[in-house]
């Protein structure tokens, strides 16, 4: 995180890295490398139920809350990162 005028700003690479840790813990796979275009197809065990666990863990990790529509519209990791960054600014 880069300090700027007293505030800690979240950068994209930071977010990506932290999200990677979340993925690795949740899916019990140290080989996961998240990237923007990654979807549920690319990860074994990422189904409708673990998706919700993922969302919940992500919300807790970054201290944000997603709305129902936002969760429903997520298509890939990249969009998830965008959402995290957008929410973190508020």
């Amino acid at each position, binding site marked *: 995180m880069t300090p700027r005028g007293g505030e800690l700003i979240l950068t994209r690479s930071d977010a990506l890295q932290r999200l990677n840790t979340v993925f690795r813990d949740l899916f019990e796979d140290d080989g996961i490398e998240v990237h923007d275009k990654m979807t549920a197809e690319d990860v*074994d*065990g990422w*189904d*409708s*139920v*673990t998706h*919700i*666990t993922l*969302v*919940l863990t992500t919300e807790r990790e970054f201290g944000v809350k997603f*709305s*129902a*529509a*936002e*969760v*429903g*519209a997520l298509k890939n990791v990249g969009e998830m990162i965008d959402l995290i960054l957008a929410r973190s600014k508020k």
Partner: protein
Amino acid sequence: MSFTSLTFVLFAIVAIAALRFSPHGPPKKFVTLLLNAVFLTSFLSSPIEVIPLLAFVSAGFLAIRTVRTIKIPFALAIFIALFIGAFAWLKQYPLFGWFGLATLPIMVIGLSYILFRILHLLIDVAQGTSECPPIIDYFCYVLFFLNLVSGPIQRYEDFASEMNSPPVQSTSDDIYLSIHRIVLGYFMIVVMSTIATEFMDLGRPMLSAALVRGGTLDVVRIYSLLISVYLLNIFANFAGYMHVIIGIGGLAGIRVPENFNHPLAAKNLGDLWARWHMTLSSWLKTYLFNPLLKTMVGRWSSPAAAPYLGAIAFFVTFLVVGFWHGTTFQFFVYGVVMGIGITSHWLWQHGLSRRMGKKRYRELCARPWYYELSRAATLSFFAVAMTCIWISSLDLSRLFEFRNSVAVVVSFAFLTVAGAAFGGVWDSIRDRLVARVSWLGQGRGPLRLLRAFEPWILCAVAGALLEGAVLEISGATAASSITHSAVTIGTFTALFTAALVAGGVFDPPMKVLLQGSPESPNKNDALAVWLGLRIFIVLNFQILLASAVPTFIYRAF
């Protein structure tokens, strides 16, 4: 107005012209509002009937407007509960019925869909994802005539972008595709669904009789036939209607979301619901399944519990699907059966992939025999579940008797095995047919023409053999002379081929044959004539079967 009436055709033409040629923004919205009003009014026999509906929709707007600013705790939850309650009251659900609406004539067409549109906006605005729409846009969206009766549940943002941004440039290929979809849709409704409905009408009394005094084998035979035909019936009716709607939207320059994606190719029950009535499952996933599961997991988080919480969430979601489809006890049973099915599928999938390891599970799913069996079991289960929709309540209670329940299970097993075998054969033939289509239309001169007629010849022979065999086995031709049988078979084959032409089955080879060189400016003209021929055939069927065309899907919700 009925979708197969001349009034609707004229209305659609006017709507298409009005929407396509009105500039985006306020003029388009005004035109849409007018069209919505005209369409809605066509269902009324007196103005009073529409008041509850309009009140419901207007209340929706007020709620959406105030949900963020109102200083009540849990405002969103209260509003949601109020709207669902009002919906249940207006639709006369059992527990709400006695609050006195039973005798009044109210129009509740499309209320189920309207409820979901209002809830979606309510939740999105409350959670900050969207802004409250302007009142004109709101009324355009909630009462949009294409989506009103049975239409896809479109998200507000998508609809708004259609209204506000200039339409994407349509090419003549787009126009062709839209008209093709309209013709295909009408074909599915007017021909396939009508014939299937007549079969159902024939078979229902026979089933009733067999449930009471027939043998188990009789029940199995009749029940298997009826549920298979009903599955095709509802698919032809619903998906056909969607084709018409999306085609009209395409001509008008408005994108309407898809609701079906080859559901008959579904791998399992979960996949089926991702292909059948897609906008419904997508809505429920976003606004019911996800939040519900999130709440449960948040409260009882443990990695082991999550799959079972998922099963509960699935069950509840499909229970709601049952309730949403209808107000009677049968729909509750439908929801329960579907819930059990989905939960079983989920637990099976989860359990098996855990046991075998994810990679081996995927390999298993890809094996043809597993795929065919899984698909056949899915469709058979779906067909059994949908019994609740067409069967009478008396017969439904009879189905639960031991002997008849056994028959249901045997029917399911039989259809699964037969379906898997048929699916296997079909898939292997289809690949070869597709390979042949690309071979068609090649070569020069008369050879090209001859090859182009191959589909007809194949169809004619197949149809004749099929009908001949069926007539012979059933004994229908026993008393007729050879000439009479030959004429019957010949006529049937001709009609069968005409129906396939109308349904667009021969479009791929005709496209190859007729389009000539891709550079010619009027390459679509010959195709347009072909499309005109298809329209003419469907119109003929429509006039022939006019009195028999079912409209059950349109009025169900």
